[in-house]
């Protein structure tokens, strides 16, 4: 065997593994591991993009999702929004290039962090059905609708436009918006997947109106419960405590800074001249060293210095929570039969240099009494539907003694009761336990915040449950009196040999009197 050829050959081989090949082999990593989930992922990418676009443009989102079963296992997915639309020459890049516009250098609370991007959906479509994505987009009433059909050239990772035209078509009543259409192989399930995802999305995005046309003809409308967009999350620079080696290397490579000190000062939050010098000292690196001249060892030293340095926490105003009031309104709308709803937004906190904020909602009186409570997890307003038993939320909930709050619980299991527990983590960077991004990592700081938030809500729930039990007791007691009084009247009449009929009215009055007495006694008891 030729040695020279060997090394060269393998190096070449490695380079030539195409994006599509990688994608094929790693579908599960990206969430396409089964047909039901694949269909959901397509919808999710479309809807997340629409919501992000509307929010950024300050438009209250109207989103319409349609699923049509065009033949066995093949679905036509269409997602239409009233967003700002996309400039014509941007369209092919956004839909036809994997990892375009990737957000490595900006930290900002966004949905996009969690998907693989709409381009992956395009790739999945062309891999499973061979059909291109169709895009209609309009930026204003003055311009025409741009129409595109395109593939991804997977070896070059470049868009391959099949058809492109500007047309007059009345698709966007607002005068702007985007519509995409993809044919994919998948499976539709009524009880899980798309429907649940849209419902939960509507819960976490109460300012959005979402209409869903299911393949079986069912039409669902999730109307908005709040008429104001949330405040826009601010972009922040990464915090020195929250940086990883790979990202640091890339940042060093791309920076325009001439010295490491100015690099640290300019591209990280909470780092001033003093802190930058401190980091260099800890890393044993000259502060004048140019980022271009970093060796691998230098980078590792720098990273250590960054982790060790004592700096202020990152700014916390970069987050955009749902809001306690808004979440409550939303839950009230989705659970009109709930007995009580408690919501809470905690103050922002920090894990590993990343600001985050926990929100909790408790919906009581829905679902089965005997089954475990339902937990709805959200990260940056996106529902997490899979890996329900894993992650920080479940960990935190299991570690709470629920009996204290009036729910049944055996051991360290999830509690039992007619309850839905909503937990939302908003963060500039949500840590997931795996690439499929379905459960939040179990960092102690995050678990602690979730636990505190849930416990605070549970205390309010306990007050409600107590009140309810009290009322139930009262009712039960009154019921006993209501049972016995007619019997007493009857026996006493028989005993006295008198007619009972005239006494029915006074007896009713008497029962009312007793009912009042029971209420007062109960109040006294609970006050003492």
């Amino acid at each position, binding site marked *: 065997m030729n040695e020279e050829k060997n090394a060269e050959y393998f190096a070449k081989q490695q380079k030539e593994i195409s994006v599509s090949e990688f994608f094929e082999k790693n579908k599960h990593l990206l969430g396409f591991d089964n047909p039901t989930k694949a269909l959901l992922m397509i919808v999710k990418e479309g809807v997340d993009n629409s919501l992000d676009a509307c929010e950024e443009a300050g438009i209250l989102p109207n989103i319409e999702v349609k699923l049509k079963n065009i033949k066995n296992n093949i679905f036509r997915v269409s997602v239409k929004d009233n967003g700002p639309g996309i400039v014509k020459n941007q369209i092919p890049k956004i839909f036809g290039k994997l990892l375009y516009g990737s957000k490595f250098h900006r930290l900002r609370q966004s949905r996009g962090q969690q998907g693989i991007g709409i381009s992956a959906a395009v790739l999945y479509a062309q891999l499973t059905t061979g059909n291109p994505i169709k895009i209609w987009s309009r930026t204003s009433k003055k311009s025409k609708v741009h129409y595109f059909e395109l593939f991804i050239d997977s070896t070059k990772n470049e868009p391959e436009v099949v058809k492109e035209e500007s047309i007059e078509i009345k698709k966007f009543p607002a005068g702007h918006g985007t519509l995409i259409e993809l044919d994919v192989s998948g499976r539709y399930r009524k009880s899980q997947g798309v429907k649940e995802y849209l419902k939960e999305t509507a819960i976490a995005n109460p300012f959005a109106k979402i209409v869903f046309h299911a393949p079986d003809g069912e039409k669902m409308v999730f109307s908005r419960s709040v008429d104001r967009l949330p405040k826009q999350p601010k972009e922040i620079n990464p915090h020195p405590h929250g940086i990883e080696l790979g990202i640091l290397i890339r940042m060093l490579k791309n920076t325009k800074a001439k010295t490491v000190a100015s690099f640290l000062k300019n591209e990280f939050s909470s780092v001033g001249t003093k802190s930058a010098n401190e980091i260099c000292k800890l890393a044993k690196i000259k502060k004048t060293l140019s980022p271009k001249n970093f060796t691998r060892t230098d980078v590792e030293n720098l990273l250590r210095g960054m982790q060790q340095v004592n700096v202020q926490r990152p700014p916390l105003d970069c987050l955009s929570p749902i809001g306690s009031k808004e979440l409550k309104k939303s839950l009230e709308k989705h659970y009109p039969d709930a007995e009580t709803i408690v919501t809470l937004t905690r103050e922002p906190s920090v894990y590993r240099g990343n600001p985050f904020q926990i929100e909790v909602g408790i919906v009581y009186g829905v679902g089965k009494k005997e089954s475990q409570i339902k937990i709805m997890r959200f990260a940056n307003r996106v529902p997490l539907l899979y890996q329900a038993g894993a992650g920080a939320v479940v960990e935190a909930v299991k570690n709470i003694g629920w009996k204290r709050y009036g729910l049944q619980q055996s051991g360290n299991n999830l509690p039992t009761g007619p309850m839905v527990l909503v937990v939302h983590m908003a963060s500039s960077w949500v840590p997931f336990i795996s690439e499929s991004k379905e459960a939040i990592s179990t960092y102690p700081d995050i678990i602690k915040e979730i636990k505190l938030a849930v416990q605070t809500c549970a205390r309010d729930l306990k007050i409600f449950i107590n009140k309810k039990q009290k009322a139930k007791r009262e009712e039960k*007691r009154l019921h*006993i*009196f209501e*049972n*016995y*009084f007619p*019997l*007493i*009247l009857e*026996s*006493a*009449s*028989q*005993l*006295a*040999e*008198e007619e009972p009929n*005239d*006494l029915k009215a*006074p*007896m009713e*009055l*008497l029962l009312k*009197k*007793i009912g009042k*007495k029971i209420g007062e006694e109960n109040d006294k008891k609970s006050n003492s």
Partner: protein
Amino acid sequence: MTKKATVEELKTIGKSVLTDIKNVDIPKLVIPMRSTSNLVFDKNNSCYVLGNKTLIRSGGNIRHIKKLAQFLKVAAFCKDLVKGEKRHVTKRELYYISESWGPNLKFNEQPESDDIIEDIEASLSKPSEDIKIIPNPKGAIYGNITLRFKNPKGETMVINCLNTADGQQIGPRTAEAEFVKTDADKVIAIETGGMYNRLIEENAHEKFNAILINLGGQASRSTRRIIKRLNEELKLPVYLFVDSDPFGMHIAMVIKSGSAKSAHINKRLATPPAQWLGVTASDIIQYKLKTDKMRDLDIKRIKELQNDPRYKNNKRLQKELTIWLKLGKKAEQQALLKYGFKFVVEKYLPEKFRELKAPGFR
């Protein structure tokens, strides 16, 4: 007439409840308390009677309301029994009859219905027989006494107790029978059926000119009632012939002084002049009777009896209790048979009658 009075008293209770309801007041009943804290020793009658404490069954109290309703239901049921004359109902029967009263009124266990009956007795100060609730018939009467009573069909019957095979069973009708005629000058009440039969067969009734009563263990209320009436109405002295142990003595004492449980009606049942004849503790020694060892329970009972106000001032009883304690032994009535069938009528009883100065032995 007492029957009419009973009906009226029951009606009054019903009316008070109706009046409360009419006035939109919470109906309630005031009932003499039957707990031990309300037992008072009546020195004149030397028996326990109820004190002045009362309890209230209020229709406004969740814990009272069921008992209030059941009280009224049972009272109404009994009132109809009293008016109907014909039927008597045992406590056990009442418990089963309540099954037809629906889930809210029926009794789950007999102690519940017994408790209500005792409440009604206490409210009326009358034994349950007056409201036609009777204990299981127990006890019999034999001897030359003529009784007149109505049979369940309402027909008047006259019988002499000698004209029965084993004596007349003492049920509610016998207990309240009219005494027509008797030549007897004393009553012997016997604890065990065996000894009662022995005395009949040995002709004790003729020999001692006595009416014989079989108590059958602890005497039923009907039996206690007829003993009291024989003593009170016919002025016959009563002799209590029981086993030689603290329980036999207690059987005798309940006839004399009534029981704590029936304190609310003891005045109508107790026969204070009745005398304990034996078998005494001294008899065990005197007649060298076959004995059994006393159990812990017997010892405990003796100690209780020593402190019981009913027996505290009775020197003869106190002496016998001390002897028992010393002996640690007890004996049954039947132990006397060691000297043959006739011994009890020829030797034992005559000696006792002489000692107690009974009629015909003075």
